[in-house]
């Protein structure tokens, strides 16, 4: 019991801001619409939030190791389009196509990782380039707009769930997948790989001189990000079907989410749990705006202001006790 509490404290300690923020936003949602916390609508919220949360976990690995992955939005889009074109409505193709998608996600992560680590191209540029390539290549392949259609089986994880559960109504598969990914990520960060990844983001040279395969660890982080984009793609495609715009701009949302979770761009700091909480905050914020019937056009402005304020608050907490050491602005690598 105390061990659990200790774990919780440790997990939340440096990044408490995001959890406070989560509570605040949920309180706001509750004030607007108490019905939100009834089982079914809460489940619906978690179902729709799951892809971003999973993406945040993937992005976390990349960020904590000292890189960026700007290609995830394009990859999510590409995966959905690939799925639709290859499945083309045939149920029997679902599993093979899922395997192809996983391989594609791994391949994109691998290429991102190798270009970044072996060719020493900064990840901002690598993944920006990858974004362009994926965006263009997928449209080139489909002639500009997605073709084909998804199978029912493919859509199950993103759309359906365990039905008729008392109180909750439906437990979405997406939620279970999200929990599995979250648990897996937390456990992974507690392994030697996780610690090496963290150390590599903190001080690459020290880690390398300690015998760590820094490049390999970072490449694996990119692969994990590619896989998380694949899972997110399966969930998003399942949830809403194919559309041309799928995935657009997700990369910035997810990086914002991770940073909101107290993870420092530049690497070496932050917890994956908090990163995923950051994604929940963003989704909750969108829900809050919706509940408040805030004019659509104003929402970005409010979102921007809240993000800046929250990150500034977290930065103040981090810097206040040690005014001089932490003023350094960590920047993308």
């Amino acid at each position, binding site marked *: 019991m105390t061990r659990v509490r200790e774990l919780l404290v440790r997990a939340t300690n440096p990044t408490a801001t995001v959890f406070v923020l989560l509570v605040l936003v949920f309180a706001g949602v509750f004030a607007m619409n108490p019905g939100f916390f009834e089982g079914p609508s809460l489940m619906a919220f978690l179902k729709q939030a799951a892809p971003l949360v999973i993406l945040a976990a993937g992005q976390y690995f990349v960020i904590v190791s000292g890189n960026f992955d700007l290609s995830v939005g394009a990859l999510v889009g590409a995966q959905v389009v690939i799925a639709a074109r290859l499945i083309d409505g045939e149920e029997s193709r679902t599993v093979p196509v899922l395997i192809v998608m996983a391989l594609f996600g791994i391949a994109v992560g691998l290429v991102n990782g190798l270009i970044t680590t072996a060719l020493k191209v900064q990840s901002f*540029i690598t993944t*920006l380039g990858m974004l362009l390539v994926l965006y*263009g290549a997928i449209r080139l392949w489909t002639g500009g707009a997605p073709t084909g259609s998804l199978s029912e089986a493919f859509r199950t994880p993103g759309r359906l769930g365990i039905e008729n559960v008392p109180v909750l109504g439906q437990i979405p598969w997406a939620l279970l997948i999200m929990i599995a990914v979250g648990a897996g990520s937390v456990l992974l960060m507690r392994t030697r790989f996780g610690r090496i990844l963290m150390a590599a983001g903190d001080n690459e040279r020290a880690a390398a001189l300690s015998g760590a395969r820094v490049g390999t660890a970072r490449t694996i982080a990119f692969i994990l990000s590619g896989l998380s984009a694949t899972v997110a793609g399966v969930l998003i495609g399942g949830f809403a079907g194919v559309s041309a715009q799928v995935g657009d701009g997700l990369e910035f949302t997810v990086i914002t989410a991770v940073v909101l979770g107290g993870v420092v761009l530049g690497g070496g700091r932050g917890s994956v749990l908090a990163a995923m909480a950051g994604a929940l905050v963003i989704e909750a914020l969108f829900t809050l705006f919706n509940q408040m019937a805030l004019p659509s056009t104003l929402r970005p402005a409010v979102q921007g202001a809240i993000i800046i304020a929250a990150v500034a608050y977290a930065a*103040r907490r981090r810097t206040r006790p040690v005014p001089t050491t932490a003023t*350094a*602005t960590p920047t*993308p690598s």
Partner: protein
Amino acid sequence: MTRRPGADRLGTTALIYLALAGVLAAGAVATAIDGGNLFATANLVDMLTRTSLTGFLAIGMTLVILCRSLDLSVGYTAALSSLVAATTMDGQVANIPLAVAAVLLVSGLVGAFNGAVTAYLGVNPFITTLGTGLIIKGYLDTQYKGPAGDVPALFQQFGYTRIGPVPVSALVMLALAAAAVWFLRSTRTGHHMYAVGGDVEVARMSGIRTGRTLMWAHVLCGMTAGVAGLLLAARFGTGSAEAYTNLYELDAIAAVVLGGTLLLGGKGGVAGTVAGVAILAVLDTVFNVMQIDPFAKDVLRGVVIITAVAIYARRQLDRTARRPRFAEGRAS
């Protein structure tokens, strides 16, 4: 120890201009095979025209990146500026000076906000400027539901007039680039940007007002985005909120990095950035002349950017190179 002063910086810049020449040559060959002539006047004009907008944005972006910061809000600032310009001018030639002043003020203030939040509140610039961009977007979408304002023909000359084959806007961009080169080299604030980007703590301990330096970089970056907005207004004849959808900020960052400035700050310069901008412009023109499919364009752009950066990443990251004492291979 025998290195000439500044030889290293010069070397990198030279390499980038070499890369530019390479891209030009490759583009010329490709268009020639396709039956075109890249150096036809029309194509040269096209290339030069395409440099101005990204050029303005990239010059300011160079300053913030040198300081190890980033500005993802420039596209939004430019869109806002185009509206401020067009609505202030409102078709009146007499309002032009006022409009220019208003644009520089507004865009400078946006930059100041970015700088202040980044420098004094310790927010990562990626987040600061992403947030600022969202705020401006919200304002634009709410306030302007489309193009607004009217730019008098006189000011439209800024977007359309050419001296010989050279568009005025490209000349202004080059002049601004020259000013920025001078600023970085010869003023204390400019010089300190390298220090702040190299290591803020060291800069601070050396007595540099790091926050102020960063503020300056952001203000200037905001203002160059303002100038880009003026150019947009001159070319559109009106202000356009939609301009932010074009992700100009990513183009600008790509140009800066192509120009050899390190995203981690502290190294690089505007001379390289101009070459980076030119590389992108040449690519655009070549793609257009060759009628490349728009989606293939994206693919090729991505590949070229990564390849170019990979080529000079090797040199740049080899910072700790020590002078060898024994020539390799001979001593054995």
